[in-house]
């Protein structure tokens, strides 16, 4: 009776080992494929480039300089013309004091998510250098 119990226990141990081995094999097979979601998607690539382009355009059209002089309506209008589904938040900082001179958000884009694209540049205006930051994300 004791011998039978011991043998049964032995068989169960083997079963458990086999099951554990199979479970580990399945996990081992699946782990290499689990990082596929971390590949950058089309939307992320797109918004990164679009954000960098937009900052360049805002500088070249003079919208940033107008904003620094106190008139942010042109910058607001340009942001509103960007593709639907994309959000942007612009900020100009005084390089000397690090204070925000002005900030503009695209209408309807108040909540800034954790994952986003960013572009930075400098603008020299009226004897002062300003740091420009533009954040972009897909709404």
């Amino acid at each position, binding site marked *: 009776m004791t011998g039978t119990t011991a043998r049964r226990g032995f068989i169960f141990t083997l079963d458990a080992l086999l099951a554990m081995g199979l479970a580990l094999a399945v996990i081992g097979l699946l782990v290499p*494929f689990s990082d596929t979601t971390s*590949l950058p998607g089309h939307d992320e690539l797109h918004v990164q480039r679009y954000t960098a*382009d937009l900052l360049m355009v805002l500088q070249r*059209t003079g919208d940033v300089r107008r904003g620094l002089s106190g008139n942010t309506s042109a910058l607001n209008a340009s942001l509103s013309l960007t593709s639907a589904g994309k959000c942007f938040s612009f900020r100009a900082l005084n390089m000397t004091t690090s204070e925000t001179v002005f900030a503009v958000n695209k209408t309807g884009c108040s909540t800034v998510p954790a994952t986003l694209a960013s572009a930075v540049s400098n603008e020299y205006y009226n004897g002062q250098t300003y740091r420009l930051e533009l954040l972009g994300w897909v709404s």
Partner: protein
Amino acid sequence: MATSLSGSSSGPRAGRGQMWLIDAMVSGTFITLILFVMLGIQGQFTDKYVQQDSEVSFANSVLAASDALVLTPGRPANWDYVVISDSNLESFGLASSSNVISTAKALRLVAINATNYTAVKAALGLAASNVSIEIMLLGNVTPLYSFGTKSSNTSRSTVFERLAVMDDNRPVLVRLEVG
């Protein structure tokens, strides 16, 4: 008695052997089933991975082409003033400088639509796909300049929109559709 003893001793042995055989068959079936399920899951993951990898790779090609369009002048840089062929157009771009579209190049792009569509596609690294390039004023839907053909199957097209200014500082949207 001897027969009875012999019978009683062979009975449990035969029963034990049968039990082991059933046990082995059941576990063998289960292991085979698990292996098939594992292979199936692996196959699904591999297919998904390969598909995703190929989609990302294609999106990267379109992204590189859109970079070339709005950030570079192309090679030769004066392609808008020379006769283009499949052999002399090494890369294609519309910019006079980063994010500034040359009006002369945009006009030439429209002019070569009928004659050099294949050469432009190849220079953009998109020889195997349908390519459409449209330049429109920001906020406008009517293209100022357009080139190429759109894919009939729009659900399989990849679109990249880039922003730039024309050389007179008008902001424009450069829309590259590849399918």
